[in-house]
């Protein structure tokens, strides 16, 4: 039986929680859509993509236990900040890891990102299963998986929380859809957009694993290699970010006094909660 080919598309994003309030305020005060200054904060894996990357490894492990092969690849539409993660994925058993040089900021250009991912599948690495996080910041459009599926002519399952390898080698996929938990068996090829999966953290490679695979190289691909004119696509974008506003969430923030946890809980209850809870 031929190996199941899985490709995971992932994104490395700035850690928004590490940004200062002043940076958000500066972005909101700007004249146009200059974006937010994020160069100084650490980079993290988009959380849904992290689930997808680990899910692919577990699927590969489960198939290996039954003696069937899985071929794993990973690609990121992103700059050099993706390379430490690509190296980690190679150490963890991904056969290939590559990034597509974005050439410009694509944070609010989901159609261009989707064209690049679809181009990568068509031109560089064909697969049976494309795993991708269901959304990623800062654009958070959630559109990329569907647009990739459209470009490839493939079906797409979204809000995937579990992928199980059945004994007959077909896949059983669980999705948290709008009205419940749906389990389906998709025909391949297929796009799976991973949502709030229980599998949420990528395993860490051992030093031995890193050393064993340290010579494996990372591929770097240009948009032109994939038949995508990134600058031209950006000029033709039909949905343009024009301005950013802050969101005011501040309330009274009254500090409740007291010497002990009991005193404070008592003051919170008497001064703020008693009447509200009684009315419920």
């Amino acid at each position, binding site marked *: 039986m031929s190996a199941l080919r899985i490709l995971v598309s992932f994104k490395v994003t700035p850690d928004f929680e590490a940004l200062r309030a002043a940076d958000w305020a500066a972005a909101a005060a700007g004249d146009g859509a200059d974006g937010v200054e994020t160069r100084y904060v650490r980079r993290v894996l988009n959380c849904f993509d992290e689930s997808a990357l680990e899910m692919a490894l577990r699927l590969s492990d489960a198939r290996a236990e039954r003696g069937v092969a899985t071929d794993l690849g990973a690609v990121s539409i992103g700059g050099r900040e993706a390379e430490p993660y690509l190296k980690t994925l190679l150490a963890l058993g991904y056969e290939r890891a590559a990034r597509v040089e974005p050439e410009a900021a694509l944070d609010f250009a989901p159609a261009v990102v989707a064209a690049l991912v679809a181009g990568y599948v068509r031109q560089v690495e064909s697969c049976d299963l494309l795993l991708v996080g269901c959304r990623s910041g800062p654009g958070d459009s959630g559109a990329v998986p569907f647009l990739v599926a459209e470009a490839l002519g493939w079906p797409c399952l979204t809000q995937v929380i579990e992928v199980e390898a059945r004994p007959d080698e077909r896949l059983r996929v669980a999705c948290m*859809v709008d009205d419940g938990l749906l389990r389906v068996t998709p025909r391949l090829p297929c796009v799976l957009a991973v949502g709030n999966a229980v599998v949420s953290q990528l395993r860490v490679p051992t030093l031995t694993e890193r050393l064993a695979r340290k010579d494996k190289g990372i591929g770097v691909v240009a948009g032109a290699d994939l038949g995508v004119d990134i600058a031209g696509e950006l000029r033709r974008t039909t949905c343009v970010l024009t301005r950013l506003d802050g969101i005011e969430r501040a309330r009274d923030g009254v500090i409740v006094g007291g010497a002990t946890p009991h005193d404070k809980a008592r003051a919170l209850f008497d001064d703020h909660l008693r009447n509200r809870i009684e009315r419920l």
Partner: protein
Amino acid sequence: MRFAAILDETMGNAAQQAHALGRFLREGLSGDLAGETLVFYHDDRDKTRLVELAPTRAVRLIKTTARRPGRAVELLTAFVHGEAVPLFFFAGGSTGMELATRLAFRTGGAFLTEALSVAVEPDRLLCRRNVYSAHLVGHFELSAPPWCVTIDPSWKDGREPTASREHDVLSDTDESGGPGTSPFEDLELVDPPSAGDLAESRFLVVAGRGAGNREGVERIAEAARRMGADFGVTRPVAMNAWAPMDRLVGISGTRSAPEVCIVVGASGAPAFSWGIEKAAFIAAIDPDEHAPIVMNADAAVLDDGVAVVEELANIVTAERADD
């Protein structure tokens, strides 16, 4: 300008879709507009109810096959080519997002997901939506019709619309025998989402990473249970598997608008705060006076969250016993 609101009963809760779309059309949409509702259904017995739920007076019914979004997109694409409707609204959620983005792709139109508001001008659409994990709101301009827009999940508030008999059914077509087969086999809808109670909660306790460990989260959950409150968690807690994912509150989980929300040991990151910002009253318990949640709460206790919420549960249960 004409618009169409899409009600897809074949993929989910039509009543909640209708309510969210109705709220959005009344409160989130501006411009000189006339609309109709396209209702996708698969069971004739639901027709009357679905017509009564429709958020516009004019209604078109389209019978199709359940859980085949690809077929719905084909029918919508044909509708775009046959009718001069440049604007489509879809309810929030994964179904609406799939239909809107695929329709835009096939018709060469522009899409925007999770709109907070939409202003319609003759040659463009001006929309607002959350970006940067709900740290900011972005303003977007859409240029190429047809414009395919999904509305923000916050337009859904757990309620259902009042049924109305004032509707005109413009057409009723049967497309259920359409071409092709589903790419998905052995469909099995297992559970309704158990987090539904969070979206409709009136009294909610949320545990954050400050709980420290699984035991801390379980102690907060037990305190919530004793107070008669629903229990939710922030993303870091769910990611650590200290509580099930279906308890997740925030931009990637449930949005709740309770009368009382007690946040225990959460810093108040915007992606979480989005999930509770419609609460009537927020109390925060956290030792860090500089945590954003302190300023974003109506009242705050600066102390260990687990200890204080357990004391609070003792007080609430004692007061109830005295009544």
